């Protein structure tokens, strides 16, 4: 769909720059968004996409530059001002209040009123309607706490849809979504586009970008470097424009696994039935992918294997020895480690330094002796260097890009020379360039004889990195596919039984 | 030597009785051109020990000392003594380490008088409750002793509940009396060992609005209590000579600094005060 040359842009940015102290994160960026088009904003982690979105939506202020909204000067000082004008941003981070109901979250700050009081009945009704638009059939009176990340993301989207935006910015809305949810979202995006809403779409998933967007704007190091408006542009060209160098390949060649089974799982059940009767093994040097729809129970399964959740039946054997895992410490002691799906809540103490975070997972190894600053630093620096983290041991984890944070989580575990490594959504929210780095680490682990399990909602990723793929469907083991049998069709067939 | 700088360590300025003494000491010292440094322990013994250290650091010539707690009372005296500073204890004295002199009301005798009065007023029989002061302090111990003596003559009076307060305050009196009335709704005699406690108790009685008449006795002659007494809020108190106590304390401190000898214990009278004779004390507090 091409924009009509006579319409005026809803929003124009001219020469926007942003400094954080001495650090310049946006350099002289100009951008126009027209009604009824979807503009993709692409760039590596830290390129400045979220910063730019925040400036448009009034949650951050630019250091330099100007904006116009429908031809008028526009400089929102608060998110409220932007919302009132019709500029709505779906933040990259979930912005939900877990203790409150879904309905309340959808209408937070803009409660439907009647006679000066909040009209709760109307609020619930309207929220339910919004959820229905996204095929989400959960009572809107339910609290958000306990919902899966995917559902929370959908609520976040519903919240934005309820606002009748003229300009909608979606900052990585699908990072936590599976295929079906993504489709529902795209349907809404297309509908809004046809209603003349201008849309800015940010994502690291290239296949989506190609499907949904009319025009692609690439940011690199805070600078607008290129624009593509031809839908025939090959992905490789776009990616190279993002990373600023030629990229040879995303997935490295997989090694051939040994015959030696390291981890044997049989008849495993969870107490709350989120998975049942799961049986598989992983051999040394093998990468086992786990695929399934959102809510299929993949996370619960791998959490149980790594001691984070209890099991109600079945057995987990490591090199023939049956394990009784009461908590993660037991699993870790045996050599099973997990990179959890939620980096910020489970993987890292984001307010602490990288070095500390690495130490936390290795305290027993360092225990019994004095952990002096030099012991700590040399240990942490070794980890940082070994896994190519772009950062120094004394930096705070919160200062790193998502990809580098993820590498820190991996690094803290790999310092232990584990026998089994479980990675749950290892590249969620991570740019293509950094993703290739993480795939390299995964494959290198396998080469060293480690048994690796990779859970991912990104089908391309599981297909690209696994020797075999276990598919879960509603908690049941739907089958295990060998690499040569596995493709998007065969996996989806099993996942949707 | 001459008394130029005087330390005054008060147990707890929230109690009107101490506040009266403080004001009297400061007035008397002003008259004599003596500098006073006042510290308030807010009822906490350890705080008072710290404060007295600080007073000694400032090279006071003498210390007027009203112990905050029952337990820690000896330490400040020892500290002062080892610094060669004379100590005038007021109202409370520590057994192991008394001050150079001790100024107080004869609480045993006065409490006996108060109890005699309320027991007689109640017709010599009925259920009685006692609201004690801070456990183990000199006035608490002596007033309990005095009242017990009085009770010997009234076998038909039964003491059904006794409780201790911490800072002798009106809130505490109110709370304690309210609790006591819940457990013992038919109480008819109350001895509260300080006026703050008595006022609180009287108010608790008023709020509870019991069917029987309840006689309340207090102690101290607090400014506010005397007013209340004149309005019949409660029945009797023993008015202590706070103004004189403050003046005497300064006087004795000056004598001690000058090297004169003073008696180790100087007890003052408290006057039994009722609605009949209260007017004079309101006009002019002794």
């Amino acid at each position, binding site marked *: 769909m091409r924009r009509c040359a006579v319409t005026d842009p809803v929003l124009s940015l001219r020469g926007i720059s942003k400094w954080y102290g001495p650090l310049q994160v946006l350099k002289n960026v100009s951008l126009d968004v027209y009604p009824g088009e979807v503009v993709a904003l692409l760039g590596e982690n830290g390129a400045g996409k979220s910063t730019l979105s925040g400036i448009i939506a009034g949650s951050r202020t630019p250091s330099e530059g100007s904006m116009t909204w429908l031809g008028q000067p526009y400089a929102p000082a608060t998110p409220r001002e932007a919302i009132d004008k019709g500029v709505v941003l779906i933040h990259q981070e979930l912005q939900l209040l877990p203790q409150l109901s879904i309905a309340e979250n959808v209408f937070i*700050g803009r409660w439907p009123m009647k006679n000066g009081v909040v009209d709760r009945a109307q609020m619930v009704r309207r929220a339910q309607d919004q959820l229905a638009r996204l095929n989400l059939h959960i009572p809107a009176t339910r609290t958000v706490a306990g919902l899966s990340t995917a559902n929370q993301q959908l609520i976040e989207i519903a919240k934005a849809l309820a606002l009748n935006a003229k300009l909608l910015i979606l900052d990585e809305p699908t990072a936590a979504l599976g295929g079906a949810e993504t489709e529902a979202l795209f349907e809404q995006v297309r509908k809004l586009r046809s209603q003349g809403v201008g849309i800015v779409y940010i994502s690291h998933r290239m296949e989506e970008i190609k499907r949904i967007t009319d025009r692609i704007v690439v940011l690199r190091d805070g600078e607008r470097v290129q624009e593509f408006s031809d839908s025939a542009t090959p992905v490789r060209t776009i990616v190279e424009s993002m990373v600023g160098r030629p990229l040879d390949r995303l997935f490295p060649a997989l090694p051939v696994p040994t015959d030696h089974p390291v981890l044997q799982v049989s008849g495993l059940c969870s107490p709350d039935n989120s998975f049942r009767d799961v049986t598989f093994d992983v051999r040394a040097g093998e990468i086992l992918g786990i695929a399934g729809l959102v809510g299929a129970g993949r996370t619960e399964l791998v959490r149980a294997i790594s001691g984070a959740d209890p099991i109600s039946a079945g057995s987990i054997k490591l090199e023939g020895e049956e394990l009784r895992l009461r908590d993660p410490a037991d699993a870790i002691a045996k050599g099973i480690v997990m990179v959890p799906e939620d980096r910020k809540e489970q993987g890292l103490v984001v307010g602490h330094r990288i070095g500390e975070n690495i130490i936390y997972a290795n305290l027993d190894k360092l225990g019994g002796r004095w952990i002096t600053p030099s012991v700590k630093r040399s240990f942490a620096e070794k980890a940082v260097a070994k896994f190519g983290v772009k950062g120094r041991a004394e930096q705070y984890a919160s200062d790193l890009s998502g990809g580098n944070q993820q590498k820190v989580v991996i690094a803290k575990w790999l310092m232990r020379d584990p026998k089994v490594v479980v990675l749950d959504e290892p590249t969620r929210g991570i740019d293509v360039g950094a993703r290739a780095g993480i795939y390299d680490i995964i494959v290198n682990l396998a080469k060293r004889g480690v048994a690796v399990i990779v859970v991912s909602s990104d089908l391309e990723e599981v297909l690209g990195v696994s020797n075999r793929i276990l598919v879960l469907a509603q908690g049941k083991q739907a089958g295990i596919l060998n690499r040569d049998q596995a493709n998007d069709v065969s996996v989806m067939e099993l996942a949707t039984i | 030597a001459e008394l130029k700088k005087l330390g005054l360590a008060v147990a707890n300025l929230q109690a009107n009785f101490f506040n009266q003494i403080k004001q009297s000491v400061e007035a008397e010292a002003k008259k004599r051109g003596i500098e006073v440094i006042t510290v308030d322990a807010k009822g906490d013994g350890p705080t008072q020990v710290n404060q007295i250290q600080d007073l000694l650091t400032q090279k006071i010539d003498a210390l007027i000392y009203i112990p905050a707690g029952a337990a820690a009372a000896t330490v400040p005296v020892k500290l002062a003594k080892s610094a060669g500073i004379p100590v005038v204890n007021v109202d409370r004295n520590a057994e192991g380490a008394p001050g150079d002199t001790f100024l107080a009301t004869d609480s045993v005798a006065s409490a006996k008088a108060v109890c005699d009065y309320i027991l007689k007023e109640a017709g010599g029989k009925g259920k009685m409750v006692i609201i004690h002061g801070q456990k183990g302090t000199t006035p608490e111990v002596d007033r309990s002793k005095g009242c017990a003596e009085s009770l010997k003559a009234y076998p038909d009076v039964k003491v059904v509940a006794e409780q201790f307060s911490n800072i002798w305050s009106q809130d505490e009196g109110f709370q304690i009396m309210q609790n006591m009335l819940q457990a013992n709704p038919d109480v008819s005699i109350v001895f509260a060992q300080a006026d703050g406690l008595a006022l609180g108790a009287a108010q608790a009685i008023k709020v509870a609005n019991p069917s029987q008449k309840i006689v309340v006795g207090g102690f101290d002659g607090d400014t506010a209590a005397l007013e209340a007494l004149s309005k019949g809020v409660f029945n009797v108190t023993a008015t202590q000579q706070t103004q004189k106590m403050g003046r005497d304390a300064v006087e004795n401190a000056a004598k001690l600094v000058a090297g004169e000898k003073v008696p180790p214990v100087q007890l003052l009278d408290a006057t039994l005060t009722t609605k009949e004779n209260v007017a004079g004390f309101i006009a002019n507090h002794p």
Partner: protein
Amino acid sequence: MALDINEHGLSSGAWLSKLKGATGPLVGLLALCVFLSLSTDTFLSVRNGLNILDQITVLGIMAVGMTFVILIGGIDLSVGSALALAMMVMGWTANVAGLPLPVGIVFALVASGVSGLIVGLLVTQFRVPAFIATLAMMSAARGVANMITDGQQIVGFPDWFMMLAIDRHFGVLTATVFLMLAVVLAAWLFLHFRSEGRMLYAVGGNPEVARLAGINVPLVTIGVYVASSVLAGLAGIVLAARLDSVQPSSGLGYELDTIAAVVIGGTSLSGGAGGIGGTLIGVLIIGVLRNGLNLLNVSPFLQQVIIGIVIVLAVGAETIRRRRA
């Protein structure tokens, strides 16, 4: 039942679940009442019930303000001092300056409001943690309360004033109890149905989310600390009527009692969850417990031990209930 759902969007089961964190405490409160009714012949009487209501007025009013504060994820240690400050300002205005008592009451509320305003500004503008800002105010306001009369109490107000706490209108409620109930009800309505009330939950749940949703977080925060202080001042006036006197040492240590009532009632100290219903239960648990232990004639020292145990049981019951579920 079906009608219920349609009309109010809530079945009776849902009503119970609305209390969320407070169901454990509610069960605790009921158990306590049943136990006391069986073990004493005095507990279960209209008169004793009214007594308990009288006894919880001060705590109840303060706990409403504290609920607001804790809901937004704050804490207010200054309430006991704000109460004392208001009392002394009222007493001084009426009995020393000789102005009419109602003027004194207005001044008292203004004084406590200013104390809350300062706290609010410190928290929002100078980023002083609430704990520190209110701790500092706790000390400073107490000092000012003392300085007003140089530590002296003031006794004796007009009769009508004291009667507010004594006269049982229609033979049932005193004006002060009525006031407390009105405050509780108003606060409940406010939190549930006013958008400003809902803002408290948003701010407490996550201030950044609230900000991004267009809520003026500093303003809400300041408003809440002012409300908490003014309510503490109001509680001070009720206390003055109950005691027919004011003294600067009033309300010492009330901050912990008040916070306890709120937290026992299931409002989370991390903010964003809880409400007035739970607080009322928390206040009643404390009130009934103290009353009951007196009726049982338990010695004061043992009372302290039992109070500790019952508080833990009331709150722990919630966990045990959840585990079962």
